[in-house]
């Protein structure tokens, strides 16, 4: 039985962690002689104060939702997939091939086709380390992180030697045809009378990401496969005893995980840049780890954490644009949030648990509470 009520678990712990991170960040900003209040104002107004800001915040958040879900599902099977970065790169390759070589008549078909290709490529890239883990016991943390570098090398080779238009200096594919152009939030919201910024890159993949959050929730808590994944994650030997095949669960979980990471490419490759560039993923796969940790591997938590990180990215960009705060410091602020919400979670949780425990003990004896379902 949980010591804390669920609302404290889900809301209070991350909130206090965030406040601690914010206080420390403010001290750092003070330390370099800038005004922390003005900086926060600039971040908030720049990221959330206009549809333009929201457009960028949600664009980044979409990336992080996919990679966050990728890490979260693997966590449920107690697999640590650090390879989201490489899987997303390969997903980008899948999207690029789908968009460049198949003449799509309409964007909706292109979206379905590109999503399938992205998921297939990402899943295939995750399947190899999964197989090595399941059959040979090669640790998945090591293999997935190595596969990130292999993915970068593969992408580099393919872009420079194969997909680059002749004579182009930029190691990137040609621009995708117009028929594959995804509608942005501006296009989607215009019919219902909301004038969303035209310049912002957030697009229909946001809806795909939200749908993915929902389906993952169904999968994990409402299906037999999800039950097997969680059982395997809690205790491998017990799962085995219950007739769950570790090989099957490892493979399936990693394939879903890689597929989700790969699907990120419909947002950044198809939705934003509309061509595949060398540096397309730019660390979103690693941010996904922080997002999954902060979201406690729950799809709703991942959704919220992704928006928070989207805010940090877009707010950080605004800081870089309009102040002399160097970009290294913006990385420091982002790192502090990750540190407090991800790594130092118990620092906040344990005192809170004590407080809740003492409150409960102080109350008069009461009938036994109905057991609450554990968060994981």
């Amino acid at each position: 039985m949980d010591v804390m009520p669920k609302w404290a678990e889900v809301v209070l712990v991350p909130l206090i962690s965030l406040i601690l991170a914010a206080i420390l960040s403010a001290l750092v900003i003070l330390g370099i002689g800038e005004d922390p209040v003005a900086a926060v104002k600039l971040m908030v107004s720049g990221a959330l104060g206009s549809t333009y800001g929201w457009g960028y915040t949600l664009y980044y958040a979409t990336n992080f939702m996919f990679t966050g879900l990728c890490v979260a599902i693997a966590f449920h099977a107690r697999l640590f997939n650090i390879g989201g970065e490489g899987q997303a790169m390969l997903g980008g390759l899948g999207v690029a091939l789908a968009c460049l070589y198949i003449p799509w008549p309409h964007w909706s078909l292109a979206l379905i086709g590109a999503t399938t290709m992205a998921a297939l490529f990402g899943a295939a890239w995750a399947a190899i380390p999964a197989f090595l883990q399941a059959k040979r016991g090669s640790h998945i943390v090591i293999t997935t992180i190595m596969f990130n570098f292999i993915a970068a090398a593969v992408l580099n080779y393919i872009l420079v030697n194969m997909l680059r238009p002749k004579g182009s200096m930029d190691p990137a594919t040609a621009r995708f045809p117009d028929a594959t152009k995804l509608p942005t939030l501006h296009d989607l919201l215009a019919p219902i009378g909301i004038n969303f910024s035209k310049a912002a890159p957030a697009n229909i993949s946001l809806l795909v990401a939200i749908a993915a959050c929902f389906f993952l929730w169904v999968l994990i808590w409402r299906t037999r496969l999800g039950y097997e994944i969680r059982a395997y994650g809690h205790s491998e030997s017990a799962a085995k005893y219950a007739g769950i095949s570790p090989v099957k669960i490892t493979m399936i979980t990693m394939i879903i995980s890689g597929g989700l990471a790969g699907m990120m490419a419909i947002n950044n490759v198809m939705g934003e840049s509309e061509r595949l560039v060398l540096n397309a993923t730019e660390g979103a796969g690693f941010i996904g780890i922080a997002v999954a940790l902060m979201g406690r591997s729950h799809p709703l938590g991942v959704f919220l954490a992704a928006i928070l990180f989207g805010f940090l990215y877009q707010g950080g960009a605004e800081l870089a644009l309009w102040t002399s705060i160097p970009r290294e410091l913006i990385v420091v602020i982002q790192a502090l949030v990750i540190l407090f919400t991800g790594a130092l979670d118990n620092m906040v949780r344990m005192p809170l648990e004590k407080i809740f425990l003492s409150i409960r003990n102080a109350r008069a004896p009461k009938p036994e509470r109905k057991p609450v379902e554990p968060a994981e």
Partner: protein
Amino acid sequence: MTLMTKLLGAAAVTALGAGAALAEPALIFDLGGKFDKSFNEAAFAGAQRWAEETGETFREIELQSEAQREQALRRFAEAGSNPIVMTGFAFGDALGQVAGDYPETDFVIIDMVVDAPNVRSVVFNEHEGSYLVGMMAAMASESNTVGFIGGMDIPLIRKFACGYAQGVLAAKPDATVISNMTGTTPAAWNDPVKGSELTKAQISQGADVVYAAAGGTGVGVLQTAADEGILSIGVDSNQNYMHPGKVLTSMLKRVDNAVYQAMTDGPGMEKGFNVMGIANGGVGYAMDEYNKDIVSADMQAVVDEASAQIADGTLMVHDYMSDDSCPVLDF
């Protein structure tokens, strides 16, 4: 009435202030960052020189993500910055999208050609400068083996490597050129440790001059070359001073001049396509008090002759970009 005058006065001051802000130029650095001791830093130096001479200010931003390219361009254009200078070929696509939306703003892009009426494109003939330092490397080498260390395996760096190899073979037809790239992720532009490892690997293969075209990674290359007692060649900025007497020369790519010129010309500048080569001082090799003892007069005479021939067109250095291939080096 007085209130009205005050208000009007205030409005006039604001308008003036806005007017002053309008002319402020902006400089956008590529993902490598402002202080890479090489390409982006050269751009910063040019802008800094302009600011010091005119006493004016400029806006700047170091990008953190690909999506910010278009964002930064639009935000600066909307805020009235003019001209907007950006460093790096990776801006080409974004600028192609943005330039048409802001016909009143002048854009300057370095290392890439964007065909729009309000864009000045500045490209450098890196292969020509690399050819010259390649000749020097070959002449300074005693082992007849010289090295090249690039950042990432991208066309731009192949252009450097190809020019360098041609220069080496022109000076010593039987020399060997070893070529390595640092990595496959953007981290390769700022990885001095790996640059150092690659230098050691090339030394063990017999190289006694190494040329680094790898941004911040070059710092490690130059350091290790100096520690191990071989010569190195710097890139983009003049890096001779970093290890006096150990850096043979630096291939100068005068990004600083291009940025300085753009900011001096200001709004309404001449647009179009600028090629900065040996003929107009856009690229070259560095001679100063730090390397005068290791570059002999003979060496310099040979290189200057080649330089003159390239300038007047009698010597053609093959440009990797012209046909995506290099006659003397495989990638």
